[in-house]
């Protein structure tokens, strides 16, 4: 009994609350990245290896716009729009010729894109980390910490973007087209939906979501040319754990994994806390290879 009570005593309650908040904040940013990825996969059948690089590119555009205009919100908006247009162009130039070919080709092409973008960023912006200044300086008291309101705002904003997007999918005209295309591509085309443009639009939307999360994350961590891979990897884990192409599943998985990593960081070094998400992935592959948050296929 003594050891058990000692164990419970050793759990620092305040740390757990703080890490829960942290986990939810990063989880919602991650959910924003992952829902772009899972959307592109669900509709286009494309695993976008360049998604992390779009995230990074968004952050860099944010850095530039914020530096020149001084307005964070303008940066967020401009970055989303610019990267969305860029994503649409990329899709038209590189992915459209591959429609109807083995989906593995698209992995290779997006992988090539990620190489180009990453090296372009290194060449253009150099290896030194950039920072986006926080738009809100206010803090509130969380135990012994001065917790920045900005983090709460990010979480709310990410949730709002995902929610807005979900409503759009449900009720918007283009959203209905997207759902129709994901259900039956050929039938949708027969009904007069311009499927190639739906693909382009979806890729642009996914890019915009990646860019927005890049700008939102900018003030938390630095902006560097390698930030893309870390986030892309996490997003891949989330998407596999949540069930590929399943929007709700990946949002749940994003928060779940971020919480686990945040708790693990209480006891482990942050660089080792990553292993926790790997373990979740392995366990998922072992017992629920179709994803944790989807109904078991009959």
């Amino acid at each position: 009994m003594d050891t058990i009570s000692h164990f419970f005593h050793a759990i620092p309650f305040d740390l757990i609350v703080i890490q829960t908040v942290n986990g939810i904040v990063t989880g919602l940013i991650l959910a924003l990245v992952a829902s772009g990825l899972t959307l592109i996969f669900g509709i286009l059948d494309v695993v976008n290896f360049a998604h992390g690089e779009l995230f990074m590119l968004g952050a860099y555009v944010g850095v530039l716009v914020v530096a020149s205009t001084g307005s964070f919100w303008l940066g967020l908006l401009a970055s989303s729009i610019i990267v969305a247009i860029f994503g649409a162009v990329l899709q038209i130039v590189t992915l459209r010729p591959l429609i109807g070919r083995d989906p593995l080709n698209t992995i290779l092409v997006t992988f090539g894109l990620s190489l180009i973008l990453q090296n372009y960023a290194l060449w253009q912006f150099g290896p030194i980390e950039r920072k986006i200044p926080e738009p809100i300086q206010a803090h509130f008291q969380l135990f012994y910490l001065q917790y920045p309101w900005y983090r709460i705002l990010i979480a709310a904003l990410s949730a709002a973007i995902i929610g807005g997007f979900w409503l759009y999918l449900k009720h918007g005209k283009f959203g209905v087209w997207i759902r129709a295309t994901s259900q039956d591509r050929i039938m949708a085309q027969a009904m007069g939906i311009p499927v190639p443009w739906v693909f382009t639009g979806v890729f642009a939307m996914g890019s915009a979501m990646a860019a927005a999360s890049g700008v939102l994350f900018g003030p938390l961590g630095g902006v560097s040319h390698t930030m893309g891979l870390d986030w892309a990897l996490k997003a891949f884990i989330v998407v596999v754990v949540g069930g590929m192409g399943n929007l709700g599943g990946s949002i749940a998985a994003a928060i779940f994994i971020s919480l686990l990593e945040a708790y693990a960081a209480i006891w482990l070094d942050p660089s080792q806390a990553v292993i926790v998400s790997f373990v979740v992935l392995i366990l998922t592959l072992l017992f629920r290879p179709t994803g944790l948050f989807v109904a078991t296929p009959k």
Partner: protein
Amino acid sequence: MTATPLDKPVPLSRPLLTHNAVFWIGFGVVMAILIAAPLVLSEFWRRFLTEVLIWGLLAMSSDLLIGYTGMISFGHSAFFGLGMYGAAGALIAFSPNLWLAILFGLAGAAGAALFVAYFSTRLRDIYFAITTLIFSQIFYVIIFTWTPVTGGENGLIFTRPHLSIPLLYDARFTSTTMHWFVLAVVTASYLFLRRLTQSPFGMVLQSIRENEARTRAIGYAVKRYKIVSVLLSGLFAGLAGVLYAIQNQFAAPDFLYFITSGDTVIFNVMGGVGTLVGPIVGAGFFQLMRELLSRLFGDQFPYLIPLGVVFIVMIIFLPQGLLGFARRWLNR
């Protein structure tokens, strides 16, 4: 009963040389060039050619998966890196013996390959590619953070073992003998893999690539075949890692990073998947372009931008790669 002459169609005109003869003549010519090359080339290009062969071996090992079993691995850096670390560990902890290094390197790679094979082969296509990528990243994190054993960020440095054949030969490696040694290993690996892909086992792998469901329906244990093919592929990738470690006398965590896996896939696609020699040609093409670009525009030039563009253009317009035209012929 007499055999009817119609059982075997008589060819109207016999070709001058059989396919086999042409293949082995071509093989002999290429080998002669590669054997003679270090005698003519300068020190820099000699090392360059040796490294191309090592990268070629790595790419060839992944071709067994991409080109023959139809699974794209984005995690070959793990096998390559663990081969490196296995060799380095054996050389530092035990005796500086070449064969011991190879043995431990292969054991390291086999360990990683078993792990990846067991879990990743549960998934197909894209999912397989992503999980191999994530697994290689696990090994990267472990090697990178386990500083007391692996040297962390700095890696391991060791002295190169002697080139020794027990009781027969024992001498220091020179860059020329290193080249010949690497060439011998790569050639032996190529011949083994070529034989393997033409064996009944290799035929099953190719039928998994063509139609997995049907292969399973015929009665083959698809999963077991996949595991063995990942394992074999990992072993050869580990062998490449051992060679690279011995050539450069260090093991570094950078080589476990995603970049190495990505390069491996690029070599394959550029050279032509499903040809075994294509990936070596792809590695040579890639490294030559890289060298050319950095000589033309300076070391700081981001050579991966133009090479990335070439890569994408090739996927769209030349998906068979440089040697794709010879694919059928090489596999006959």
